[in-house]
């Protein structure tokens, strides 16, 4: 199978993620969409590693997974805290800071 298809797939995933960030209201879902974008990048890295014939891309994928996990932890901590305060995980609701 042509590895270029994986690149297309990753681009599609990235776009879905980006659109999800824009249209979803639940902070957890928005956050998962960001994770989807990171994983799209991971997919691209691995596919390019295959196309370029070296392993750098796979190494990157490992690191990205770990970084993404750390990001999940930090993000969940923040979202949980907001949820406990406001009893809602909507990202439109905290809207005190503006203009």
């Amino acid at each position: 199978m042509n590895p270029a298809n994986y690149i297309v797939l990753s681009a599609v995933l990235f776009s879905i993620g980006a659109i999800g960030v824009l249209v979803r209201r639940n902070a957890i879902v928005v956050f998962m969409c960001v994770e989807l974008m990171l994983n799209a990048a991971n997919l691209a890295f691995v596919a390019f590693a295959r196309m370029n014939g070296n392993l750098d891309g796979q190494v990157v994928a490992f690191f990205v997974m770990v970084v993404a996990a750390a990001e999940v932890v930090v993000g969940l901590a923040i979202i949980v805290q907001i949820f406990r305060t406001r009893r809602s995980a909507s990202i439109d609701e905290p809207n005190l800071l503006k203009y």
Partner: protein
Amino acid sequence: MSAPAFGMHLADVVPFNLPSIDYRLIAPILILMGAGLLSVLVEAFIPRRGRRPVQLIVVFVALLAAFAMVLAAAGSRAVTAEGSIAIDGPGLLLQGTLLLVALLAAMLMAERMVDPSGDAFAPRASTLPGSEDERQFTQRGYLQTEIWPLFCFSVSGMLLFVVSNDLLIMFVALEIMSLPLYLLAGMARRRRLLSQEAAMKYFLLGALSSAFFLYGSALLYGFSGSIDLPVIADQITAKPSQSWLLMIGAAFVLIGLLFKVGAVPFHQWVPDVYQGSPTPVTGFMAATVKIAAFGALLRVLYVALGGLQWDWAPMLWIIAILTMVVGSVIAITQTDIKRMLAYSSIAQAGFILVGVVAATREGLASALFYLIAYAFTTIGAFAVIAMARDSSGEATHLSRWAGLGRKSPIVATAFTIFMLALAGIPLTSGFIAKFSVFTAAIAAGDTWLVIVAVLASLVAAFFYLRVVVLMFFAEPGPETATVAVPSVFTTVALAAGATVTVVLGVVPQPVLEMVANADVFIR
């Protein structure tokens, strides 16, 4: 199958050499990471009463030791850790500045005299705002000491960010720098709803921007077959043909960095986050993140994408103009001083971009100087903001600053110095910085850009001076904030900020020489 099979043993694919790592050169980074771990252990095993002094010792010793290592490495030019880390003039200069500014920021964070109930941080970030738990913790005088490991990790990420020579290390450094900051932003003792909101916005938008950065890295890797910045540069010259991968990849990587810098249209997090975060943290990130992000941006532009200069220059031109204009113009109608300084920092980013766009050695040197000048001025300004208080905490509304000059002339004078510097009035660091950036840009042929920049600084001068006038000309009323008497920590930070701001304006010579000697990235 022509590509190597994945199932094969790694050693069959790559002839294996042990990586060579010059530990002396990366010692500053390692010291701070070690300090971070140590500080986690302190949190785990030292009883509550003893934590704060021990943490402070760990942090200050680590910062000073790291700074000593940076000094010891001065003049080195080497690529180490298998090409992932480039220690060179700009890198070392920015590392040194970062460490000094972080030292001042640490002093602001350690301050516990200005707030009657402790320091600027919530005693327990996990308690609900307004809850009984929170009240009790406050009453018992608990202090949050978990900020210190976060601080150490963040600084280590910044140190790594400015010397990273491949996209992976850059991404990891970006995250090490940012993740602790997201948490720190949400830890304010007072106005906790604002603080939590700031943390969430910072986090979500920051994560989005790092996703862009990462996807851009993937595309650049696809284009060049490598994540090393110099190799990417070689591939750009080797394959001059149009490539969608290259252009989109470069764009995405730049977007990730421009977000951290606070450039328009990726700037909207800045005002909200600056306003909501605890003031010492705002000062810390306003000063250091700007340095680190510009360091990385300059490295990417000059080392990896140098061959594309004719492609990115017009784009950065427009972004620089937008950044300067939007930042200066919106700042005029702000009524909250932290928010005003946030827009000011956006405008300042625009001015630095003017030097970046020049893409010459003078441009690089002037941008470095600007960063140094800006960082010290900013940290000083936030030190003052942390001190101006009323019964509900910090008095950040501008009306509260009316007549402050009569109540506490010395602090108001210091703030005036910072405002004049940000406005670029002569005999302050800001003037030399603006002058050198603008001359570099004119020399590079960007005359129109400089004209816009000068006009924008004209607009900007207006709102900086408005604060000065407000402080000195209005009569103090019952609404006027009182300036808390700080401990030696804030005093030192404030004095250092003011001194550097004036000294860089009156005798900038040594620092100008330093940046002039550090105006080439290693490749």
